[in-house]
C-alpha cells in the first residue's frame, strides 16, 4: 500500500544557558574560535547527502568552540550530547554578541544529530527548565561552601517549544 511518514529523530542545538559565566553581565566576548586543537576545526565539518556522511562525531565532552573574553578569560563549550555534528553557527564568529543577546535562538553554537537509537535516552537525560533551575540553586549553595574553578558550563537545548529541556554537564 502507501508509504508511512519517516520516523522523527530529534536534532539538538547547543547554546550556553543563562548560568554560564559568559552570559553573566559585564562580560564582553572578544572572539569565538572553532579551532579546538591543532588538527581539528569545527569549521571543517562537512556533511553530504541525506545520511549526512562526513560529519565529525561528538562525545559529551567533545569541545565545540572556545570563547575568548575581553578580560582574558577563556571558556570551552562542550557538546554535552553524543552525536554527529551537522553545523556550527558561523554567525557568532562575525557577531559574537548574539551569543549573549540571543542565546536561545540566533546565538546557538552547533546543531548535533544523535544516533537514532540514542535519541530517546538522550532526550530523557535532559532537564526541564524547572529541574535546571533546581540544579542551579544547589550549585550556588555548594559554591558558597567551596571555591570553584571556573570551568565552562554548557547546556544543550532541544528545539521543542515551548519547554526546552536542558542537560548540565
Amino acid at each position, binding site marked *: *500500500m*502507501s*508509504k*508511512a*511518514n*519517516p*520516523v*522523527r*529523530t*530529534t*536534532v539538538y*542545538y547547543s547554546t550556553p544557558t543563562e548560568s554560564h559565566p559568559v552570559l553573566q553581565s559585564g562580560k564582553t566576548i572578544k572572539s569565538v574560535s572553532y579551532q579546538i586543537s591543532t588538527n581539528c576545526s569545527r569549521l571543517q565539518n562537512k*556533511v*553530504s*547527502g*541525506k545520511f*549526512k556522511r562526513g560529519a565529525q562525531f561528538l562525545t559529551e565532552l567533545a569541545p565545540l568552540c572556545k570563547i575568548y573574553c575581553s578580560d582574558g578569560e577563556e571558556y570551552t563549550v562542550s557538546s554535552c550530547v553524543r552525536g554527529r555534528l*551537522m*553545523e556550527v*553557527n558561523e*554567525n557568532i564568529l562575525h557577531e559574537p554578541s*548574539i551569543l549573549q543577546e540571543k542565546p536561545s*535562538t*540566533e546565538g*546557538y553554537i552547533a*546543531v548535533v*544529530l544523535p544516533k537514532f537509537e540514542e535519541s530517546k535516552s538522550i532526550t530523557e537525560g535532559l532537564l526541564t527548565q524547572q529541574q535546571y533551575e533546581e540544579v542551579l540553586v544547589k550549585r550556588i549553595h555548594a559554591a558558597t561552601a567551596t571555591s570553584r574553578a571556573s570551568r565552562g558550563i554548557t547546556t544543550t537545548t532541544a*528545539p521543542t517549544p515551548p519547554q526546552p529541556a536542558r542537560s548540565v554537564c
Partner: protein
Amino acid sequence: MFPLTEENKHVAQLLLSTGTCPRCIFRFCGVDFHAPYKLPYKELLNELQKFLEIEKDELVLEVPNPPPKKIRLQELEDGIDGIDNLSQNGEGRVSVIEDGSIASKSSNLNVCNVCLGILQEFCEKEFIKKVCQKVEASGFEFTNLVFSVSFPPQLSVREHAAWLLVKQEMGKQSLSLGRNDIVQLKEAYKWITHPLFSEELGVPIDGKSLFEVSVVFAHPETVEDCHFLRAICPDCFKPAKNKQSVFTRMAVMKALTKIKEEDFRKQFPCPPNSPKAVCTVLEIECAHGAVFVAGRYNKYSRNLPQTPWIIDGERKLESSVEELISDHLLAVFKAESFNFSSSGREDVDVRTLGNGRPFAIELVNPHRVHFTSQEIKELQQKINNSSNKIQVRDLQLVTREAIGHMKEGEEEKTKSYSALIWTNKVIQKKDIEFLNDIKDLKIDQKTPLRVLHRRPLAVRTRIIHSMETRYVDEHHFHLYLKTQAGTYIKEFVHGDFGRTKPNIGSLMNVTADILELDVESVDVDWPPALDD
C-alpha cells in the same frame, strides 16, 4: 491444401521419423501462412503420412529412446512368430484392433522432440478453453487482451539442434531455405491460439492492450539440456541478483549464437531425443496494467497527515489524505494496491484551501477499468460525502504521461499562502505596511531543523514574490504570500534560529512566530478543470 511440396519430402520424412510433430515440420519447411497450422492434429498427421506415402503395411512407431523401427505388418499378421520377434527385440508396441485395422500408435504421437508438446496439445482448443476458464474466473473487466507466453529455455536448444539437422539434409539437396525462413515457434503458436482466445472470450487480441493473459511453460525433465552451454560460453551465464536460474531464455539464445556447430553436436544430440512427457504449465496469470485517476484535493483539518503516520507499527494520527481518497478508489476499481502522488504537500497542521492541490493515484492491477464520466462524478461525490476533512474536485481518469504535468508543478509553479503571525513586540498597522511593497525578495534557507533528519543539509535560495498584510491586533497580523515552489513558509516567518535569512522577524526587527498556515492556491493548471 496441403502446404508441403515435393522438395520438402526429404526434410519432412527425416523430421517425422526422428519424432517431430507435423506443425514443427511445417515450420522447418518454411510454411509461413496460418491456415495449415490451425487444422486439427489428427488430420495433419494423416495428411502428412499420405504425403510421405507411408505404406499402409508399414507403421512408424515411436519409442522413447532408440530411433523408431518400421515393422512389417505381415510379420504381425503371421501371428505368434511376429510377436515373438517383437518381444525378442524388445521393441515398441503396436495395438492391433481386432478387426485387423491398424491403430497406429502414431496417432497418439509421443511428445514432439522439438516443441515438447507446445504445438501439439497446448495450442488446441481444449487447452485454450482451460486457460479461458481461468481468465473468466479471475474477475477482470476487459475489452481486449494481449497474450504473452513463455517457453522453457531448452526449447531454443532443441530448435537449434533440429535446424542443424535440417540444414545438413537440405545441403544434400542444395535447397535454399535459410534460418530466417524457419517459422519461429512462438509465432506459429500465436497464429493458432489468438483466434481461439478471441472466439472463446469474445474479445480481440491487441498488442497494446493493458490486460495481459500470461502462460508460462516449463519442462522439468529436460532442464539440464542447457547446462552444457555454460562450459562453452561461461560469460553468458553470470549469476544475476534476482534470477533463480542463470539459464534464462536470453542467456541460452546468446550462447547458441556463439557456439560452433561441431562443439554443439558433440554435446547435444541432433536430432534431439524424444522426451517422456509434455511441458507442464507453470502458471496462468492475468493482470491489468495500472490506470491513473487525478484530481485536486482540499484539506480542511489541521490534524491530518498526507500519508499515514506510523511509528514502530503504531499509528500516531488517525487516517490520512491519501487514504481518505484512495480507499474508495481501491474498492471501486477493485485494484490490488495504489500509489499516491501530489504536486507538493502540506504539513499535518496546514489546511489546503482554494482550488486545492493536484494529485494522481496509480491503481495497480485494477479489475474494473471502464467508467463513464457520470460514474466518476458519483465516485467523487461519494468521497466528498464520506469525510469533512478533505474534499475532492476534478476527479478524472488520466494517462500515465499526464502525471508529468503534476510533478512539474511541484518544482516550477508558484504557491500562495496565508499565515497568522504573532510578534513579541507590540505592533501598529504602520509597522507591517512596508511588507506589502516588497517584491521578489530573495531568501536563503538552510535545511530547516525540523526536517534535517531526513533531508540533506543544504542552502536553498527561494523567492518571495509578493506579500500582503492585514492587521489583527498589537501582537498579531495576517500575512498573505505568493512564493516560489519549495519555500519553507514557517521558517520564513520565525527564522529557524537565523538559518533562514531574511525572515519576517529580521525584516520587522521582532521575534515572530507562526500560529496558523493555510495553502491558498497551488498554481498548476492540471488536471483540467471539469464543470460540476
